[in-house]
């Protein structure tokens, strides 16, 4: 909603995302902050920021698939993993450069996701969730049981650092910038998709598939497309992860990770790209504060032991999700729009 007194005078103005000068300034400041972040903070926080950027790509994909398309997906980590493995194989065995290996990894993940998207055509809700969990097990089964020379089996795969014009991207900072570039492009693309006819089709199929068909929307194709796009994003995230850790193994992409991606979407707000970004930041900040405060806590009360930190972390995050589902099922973005609305109308109630 616009501040009072701001009116659109053209379609371009009415549909733009950045609506006031203040918003533009905020966006520029935020981008500048992201650009100089590695120069301001220590290596630990740069590492956290890098994994946050990778998570953003994956979660935005899940937002398109689940938040917009309404196709509940508990296999996002498997799709991310297939992208990571495809990137690792292409880079280490076939010598592809990173700028080709990562998008191709995305395509491989999209193909894997598309297969499960086809099943979404016939089944809905609960049963679709089970099918996407099957994607997760299938991924593990395939990686561990295919010949070891293909995907490395339980040993995993390692790969050389990315190179651009002879410059080796292997420091914390350079990998951060690599991930930043990909994340910015992917998020901008997600905003584009969300407000295109495709984004509207996804929401239409989510809201009412009977009426969507009557609008000439191919419901089957749209559902499969939601999975395709969502898993492509996961694959790009996986490719970045492969270059970040320079080692991929199955236990980096478990059902547990998939559930966290869903949690980020729920906390941020279903059906909003910005919501996905906020969800990632909130969940990761909680996780990181637990991890960094944990040792101090253990020093204060040593009789509880070190394991308790991770146990509490999971219980707390589980509690956060449950609380959101009960009290704020539409996420922080919904709350934010309510606050904005009441701020605009204040002191009147409507």
């Amino acid at each position: 909603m616009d501040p009072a007194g701001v009116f659109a005078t053209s379609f371009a103005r009415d549909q733009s995302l950045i609506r006031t000068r203040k918003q533009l300034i905020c966006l520029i400041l935020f981008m500048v902050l992201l650009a100089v972040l590695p120069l301001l903070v220590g290596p630990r926080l740069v590492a956290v920021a890098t994994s946050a950027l990778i998570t953003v790509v994956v979660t935005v994909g899940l937002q398109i698939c689940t938040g917009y398309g309404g196709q509940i997906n508990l296999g996002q980590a498997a799709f991310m993993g297939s992208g990571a493995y495809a990137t690792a194989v292409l880079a280490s065995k076939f010598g592809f450069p990173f700028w080709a290996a990562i998008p191709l990894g995305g395509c491989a993940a999209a193909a894997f996701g598309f297969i499960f998207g086809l099943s979404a055509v016939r089944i809905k809700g609960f049963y679709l969730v089970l099918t996407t969990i099957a994607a997760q097990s299938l991924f593990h089964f395939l990686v561990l049981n295919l010949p070891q020379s293909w995907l490395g089996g339980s040993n995993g795969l390692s790969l050389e650092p990315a190179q651009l014009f002879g410059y080796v991207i292997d420091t914390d900072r350079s990998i951060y910038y690599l991930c930043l570039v990909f994340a910015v492009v992917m998020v901008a693309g997600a905003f584009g998709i969300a407000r295109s006819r495709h984004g509207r089709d996804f929401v239409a199929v989510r809201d009412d598939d009977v009426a969507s068909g009557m609008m000439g929307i191919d419901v089957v194709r749209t559902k499969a497309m939601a999975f395709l796009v969502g898993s492509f994003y996961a694959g790009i995230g996986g490719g970045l992860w492969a270059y970040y850790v320079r080692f991929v193994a199955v236990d980096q992409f478990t059902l547990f990770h998939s559930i966290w991606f869903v949690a980020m979407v729920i906390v941020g707000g279903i059906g909003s790209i910005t919501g996905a970004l906020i969800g990632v930041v909130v969940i990761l900040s909680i996780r990181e504060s637990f991890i960094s405060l944990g040792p101090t806590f253990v020093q204060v009360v040593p009789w509880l032991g070190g394991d308790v930190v991770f146990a509490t972390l999971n219980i707390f995050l589980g509690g956060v999700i449950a609380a959101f589902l009960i009290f704020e099922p539409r996420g922080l973005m919904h709350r934010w729009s309510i606050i904005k609305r009441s701020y605009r109308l204040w002191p009147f109630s409507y």
Partner: protein
Amino acid sequence: MEAMAVPHGAAAGARKRPVLAAQDIGLQFGGIKALDGVTIEICSDELVAVIGPNGAGKSSLMNCFSGFYRPQRGEIQFDGTSVIGKSVHQIARAGLARTFQGTHIFSGMTVIENIMIGRHMHMRSSILDAFIHFGRSRNEEFAQREVVEEIIELLEMEAIRHRPVGTLGYGQRKRVDLGRALAQEPKILLMDEPMAGMNTEEKEDLARFILDVREARGIPVVLVEHDMGVVMDLADRVVVLDFGRKIAEGTPAEVQRDPAVLKAYLGEGTR
């Protein structure tokens, strides 16, 4: 509502080619015959009302036309080609639009987005165009937005164009439903009980919009309706169904006098 009974029809004399024609269609659910040998033709620029008591097969007929049901017997021709066996979205793309009984609108979206969905089949940008956004996707969006704004003006929805549809009243939702169907630029418009659950004022508004739409766009309309006043005022021709059979057809005045119709509605009299 009497004032609206302008003689729109007058098409009765000059029969044009049928846009939608159903030949002897039969539809069965188990042992129940929902439709039994119904033959109906809708010509261009004609407002046909389909009436009948509850369970007469009116909605089943609409669902056969739009591809939700597949009749076991008979043939449906739309714009010269058969629609039997085609999927819902294929029929919609061929130019058949419908509004729904109750509301089947996309409640999470705004009025504009709902009507933009109606423009879906007129948009071509690929998912890659959408990803890039600037260029083809954006230009197409603006071009279609212009068409949508015309519909918003026609249906007098300027004030609510950015409101989420979930927050609108029932009458306004039905208006969005109609706008969305119009955005498809259909060759024929089916309306399944558009007036059900409306108060008199909302009914009058919608009746006015239906007439406006006919005037402005010249689209043939098939109207399934329970409100006799509306039917008699709006329709050029009335088709009466009872227990899946067509029992009468003609101008509103003819149908009103038809003994078979009176029997179906009021039961057999013992005078």
